[in-house]
C-alpha cells in the first residue's frame, strides 16, 4: 500500500480523462499560472519590500524595487537589544538537537516495533498509535509544572529532551512503515552470522533506511524551526529566544515603524526552510503523500 503510493507519487502522470486539445491545454496552463502568481505574490512582495528603500515600501504594489538597498537587513539584524544572530543561533541549536533526538529515539522504537518479538509488542504499538491522536494541550500544563520544578524554564531542555524520549511518535509510525518494507532475509542472514539486534539495527536497518531517516530529519528540522508555541511558553529570557520569538518581539516593539527591518528578518527566517524545500522536495512530497503529514 505504502509502496504503491510511494511509486505512484513519482510515476509519470497518467491521463485518465483523456488528453485535452491545444485550446484546453492553454486554458489549463493559463489558470494554473494565474493561481501560481496569486500564491507567490505575497511572498515575492515581502522579499522585494525587504530590499527597497524604506520610504518606498508601501508606495508600490509592484514586485520590482526601483533600487536595491540592504539597509533594512542591517537595521533589522540589530533592531532589538539582542541581535538576530543570537536568535538564529538558538533556533539552529534547538532544531539540530531535535533532529538528532527524533532520529535516534524514534528509529530505536520503530526497530523494536517492526522487527523484534517481545511480550506486549502489539499492545504498546496500539498505545503508540493512540498517542498520535491526543492533542498536546492535555499534557501541556503538567509538563510545564514538571519542567518548571526541574529548573528547565529558560533553557532549551524542555524543547529538546522530550524528543530524545521519542515524543514525536508520528515519526515512529513513519519509520515502522519503512522498516517493514526491508526484506527480512537480510536480518535473518545477519542473525545466522551471529549478529545481535544492536548490530542488525546499526549495520543493516539504519543504512538501508536513509530515505525515511532523511524525511524524518527534514520535517523535524522544519517543524522545530517554525515552532512558536513551545518557545513562547518555555523561553522568557531574550538571550534564549528562537528566531520565531525574536520576530514576534520585533512585531510588537516596532509594529508600524520599521516594516522594512521586519520583512528583512522575516525573509531571512524563511531561508532555511526554503533551502530544504529546494533540495529535498521529492522526499518531502513523498513523505506527505505516503503518510498524510499535516503540513
Amino acid at each position: 500500500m505504502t509502496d504503491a503510493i510511494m511509486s505512484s507519487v513519482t510515476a509519470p502522470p497518467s491521463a485518465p480523462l483523456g488528453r485535452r486539445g491545444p485550446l484546453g491545454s492553454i486554458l489549463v496552463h493559463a489558470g494554473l499560472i494565474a493561481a501560481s502568481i496569486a500564491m507567490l505574490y505575497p511572498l515575492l512582495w515581502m522579499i522585494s519590500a525587504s530590499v527597497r528603500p524604506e520610504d518606498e515600501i508601501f508606495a508600490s504594489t509592484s514586485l520590482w524595487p526601483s533600487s536595491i538597498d540592504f539597509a533594512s537587513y542591517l537595521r533589522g539584524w540589530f533592531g532589538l537589544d539582542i541581535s538576530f544572530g543570537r536568535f538564529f543561533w538558538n533556533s539552529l541549536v534547538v532544531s539540530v538537537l531535535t533532529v538528532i533526538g527524533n532520529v535516534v529515539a524514534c528509529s530505536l522504537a520503530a526497530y523494536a516495533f517492526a522487527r523484534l518479538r517481545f511480550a506486549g509488542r502489539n499492545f504498546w504499538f496500539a498505545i503508540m498509535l493512540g498517542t498520535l491522536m491526543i492533542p498536546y494541550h492535555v499534557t501541556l500544563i503538567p509538563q510545564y509544572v514538571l519542567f518548571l520544578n526541574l529548573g528547565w524554564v529558560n533553557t532549551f531542555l524542555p524543547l529538546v529532551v522530550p524528543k530524545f524520549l521519542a515524543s514525536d511518535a508520528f515519526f515512529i509510525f513513519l519509520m515502522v512503515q519503512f522498516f517493514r518494507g526491508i526484506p527480512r532475509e537480510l536480518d535473518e542472514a545477519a542473525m545466522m552470522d551471529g549478529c545481535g539486534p544492536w548490530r542488525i539495527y546499526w549495520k543493516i536497518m539504519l543504512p538501508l533506511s536513509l530515505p525515511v531517516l532523511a524525511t524524518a530529519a527534514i520535517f523535524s528540522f522544519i517543524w522545530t524551526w517554525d515552532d512558536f508555541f513551545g518557545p513562547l511558553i518555555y523561553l522568557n529570557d531574550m538571550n534564549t529566544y528562537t528566531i520565531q520569538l525574536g520576530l514576534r518581539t520585533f512585531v510588537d516593539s516596532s509594529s508600524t515603524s520599521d516594516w522594512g527591518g521586519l520583512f528583512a528578518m522575516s525573509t531571512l527566517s524563511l531561508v532555511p526552510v526554503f533551502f530544504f524545500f529546494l533540495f529535498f522536495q521529492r522526499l518531502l512530497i513523498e513523505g506527505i503523500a505516503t503518510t498524510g503529514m499535516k503540513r
Partner: protein
Amino acid sequence: MAAVQDSVVAIGGGAQARPAAQGRWASLWAKHGAGYMFLMPWLIGFFGLTLGPAVASLYLSFTSFDLIRAPEWVGAANYVRIATADPKFAAAMQVTFLYVVLSVPFKLTFALLVAILLDRGVRGLTVYRAIFYLPSLLGGSVAIAVLWRQLFAGDGLINSLLAQLGIEGPSWISHPNYSIWTLVVLSVWQFGSPMIIFLAGLRQIPTDMYEAASLDGASKFRQFYKITLPLLTPVIFFNAVVQTIDAFKAFTPAFIISGGTGGPINSTLFYTLYLYQEAFGNFRMGYASALAWILVLIIALFTAFSFLTSRYWVHYDD
C-alpha cells in the same frame, strides 16, 4: 542457632537454585529484553511525558491552581463555570467552529480542484506542484503571520491593490466582521499538502475504468461523479479529518495577527489562544486544564462522529 542454620541452608539452597533462576531470567531476557531495551526511550517518554501528565491534568482540571500554592480541590466548579458563566469560552467556541467550518471546506475543495487539473497530464506538473506546496511548508511560521498582518492592514498590500481598481477596502484585520476571514484565507493559501495527498489518491485510480466508461459514452462530468469522486472518498475522508483536527488546534496566526489578544472584540479568539491566555496569562492552570479536556472531548466526539457517518459515504473497495 537454628536461625543461622536455616540461613545457611537458605544460602546453600539459594546457591543451588541460582543457576536455574538465572537461566530463566536469561531466557526471558533473551526473548523480550532486546525489544524493551530498544523501546526504553519511548516507554520513559510515554509514562513521564504523556500518561503521567494526562492523568495529572485531569486531576488539575478539578482544582484551582496558580503554580504558587498547592492545587486546591474545587470539584466540578471549573466545568460548571465554563458551561454556564464564561462568555469568553462561548466566544472562543464560536470563533473556532466558524474557522473550522469556513476554512476546511474551502481548503479541501481548492486542493481537490487543483489536484484534478494537475493529474490530467499537465506539462510541468512538478513545477506547479512545488509552487502550490511551498505555502504549506512556510505557512506555520511567524514570518508568514507577520506578512499576513501587513497584507490585510488598513494601509496594506491588499487595499493598495483594491485602490488601483477604485475600491476602498476596510482595515481587514482590525474589523471584527472581517478579521476571521483573513485567517481563513491564510489557511486556504496552504492547500498544498492536502493537494499532494489528493494527487497520490488520484494516481491510484486505475486508468482502464475511465477507458471503459468513455467507450460506454459517459461524459467527463459523469466520469468524475461516477468514478473519480466515489473512488476518492477514502482520501477525502482522511484529509477532512486531519484538516479539521488541525484547524481546531490552530494557534500561531491568530496569536500574531491579533497581538496575542484574540481581538478585535474576541473575533480571532481561537480556542487554543484562550487556553494559552488562561494558563500563561492569568495563571489559572486548573481552569486551563479543564479547557484542554473539553478540547479533547470535542475532537474525540468529532472523530467518532466522522467514523460513524463515514460508512454512509466513504467507498472502500477492499
